């Protein structure tokens, strides 16, 4: 090592080399570790779609619409100025009820649970009302139903503004 570099290594600089070295090292290792963490979140995934675009609010007449029942398991119910996305899974044992337009009720063919158009249970063995899914209006005026978010009446979640759409 040459004479002048040796001299430049005075105490102050020694400290700064030490600090710089270890700060950088820590930062670098932290960065690498954070990348490893980031690695555990895939950028794409192959899960089935839980969201769908359900047309415009005007596509639905008042009452129960069954167009999404088979593909997504959702009834669109328009009642008293509100449009809701109702799950078609019976809360008793998971059968699929039928909509009986003449009697204005959902009736489960398995054990006879009955629900009003709003999804509230009123007869049969079922313990609680049907579940609602998140529903919202997209900027292009189309309705988006998000099945990942469930609203349950008995939890008082039906007042949540995301659980219905004002029309």
């Amino acid at each position, binding site marked *: 090592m040459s004479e002048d570099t040796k001299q430049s290594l005075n105490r102050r600089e020694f400290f700064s080399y030490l600090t710089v070295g270890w700060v950088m090292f820590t930062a670098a290792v932290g960065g690498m570790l954070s990348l490893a963490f980031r690695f*555990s*979140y*895939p950028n794409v*995934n*192959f*899960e089935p779609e*839980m969201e769908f675009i359900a047309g415009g609010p005007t596509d639905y007449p008042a009452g129960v619409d069954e167009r999404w029942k088979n593909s997504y398991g959702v009834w669109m119910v328009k009642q008293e100025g509100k449009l809701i996305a109702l799950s078609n899974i019976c809360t008793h044992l998971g059968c699929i009820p039928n909509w009986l337009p003449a009697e204005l009720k959902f009736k489960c063919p398995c054990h006879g649970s009955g629900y009003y158009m709003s999804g509230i249970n009123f007869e049969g063995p079922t313990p609680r009302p049907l579940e609602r899914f998140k529903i919202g209006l997209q900027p292009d005026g189309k309705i988006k139903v998000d099945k*990942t978010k469930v609203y349950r009446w008995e939890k008082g979640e039906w007042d949540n503004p995301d659980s219905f759409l004002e029309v």
Partner: protein
Amino acid sequence: MSDNGIAKKVRDTQVWKSIFRHGPPDNARNRAAVIAGNVFLHLHPIKLKKSGVQLGYTWCMGGLTFFIFLALTVTGLLLMFYYRPTAEYAFNDIVALREHVPLGIMREIHRWGAHAMVITVWIHMFRVFMTGSYKPPREFNWGVGVILLVLTLLLSFTGYLLPWDQLAIWAITVGSGMAKATPFAGNAGPGAMLARIGDFVMVSDKNDVRFQLLGGRFVGEPALLRFYILHCVFIPLVVGVLIAVHFWRVRKDGGISAPL
């Protein structure tokens, strides 16, 4: 052992001598050498207090836990030859293991061994507590032991998913569902509501801890793969390292506990 006959001839061969550098352990010197000169046995001290070899005092639960861990490693390795962690094959491979793979109880040994390990590790902890063996100077090793206990449960838990049957996915669904409720880091946990700006949701089912654990929003194929890796590679590695620390500390902290 006799000093003549075939045994002696075998002992006198160069091969034998190259492996075992000491004579038969029938005198003090050789008894020390057999422990100290063997990479596996030198985990043990050369001599120990009498209470340390008495089952009534030690219950041998720690040792059994370690043995079962080894047995699980071996059976697990063998099972891996027949098992593919994919949604299409996982279940069928397990059926194969029970229906036509030779030594059809391999999976049974692995599964019951896993349960047995949970039991032995718990009772080991119970014994260590009851004899107050966590007290100084063994505080740190008690901590290591607690972590090992947690890892044992996690090993068992991650393995629970692999058969890919109803029992598996729903047990893991229930178990991993709790991660959802982690405060601030799970989408149904307290504080998750706060982590959002407009439609930018920072804690949702697409990015919370549960998603990280499962690689998805529900127990699906990515979860199977992740649990497989955790079960077969990641946790065993950590456990192995911690077991080494644990044993080393047993020796360094004065051997198996006894009244001071």
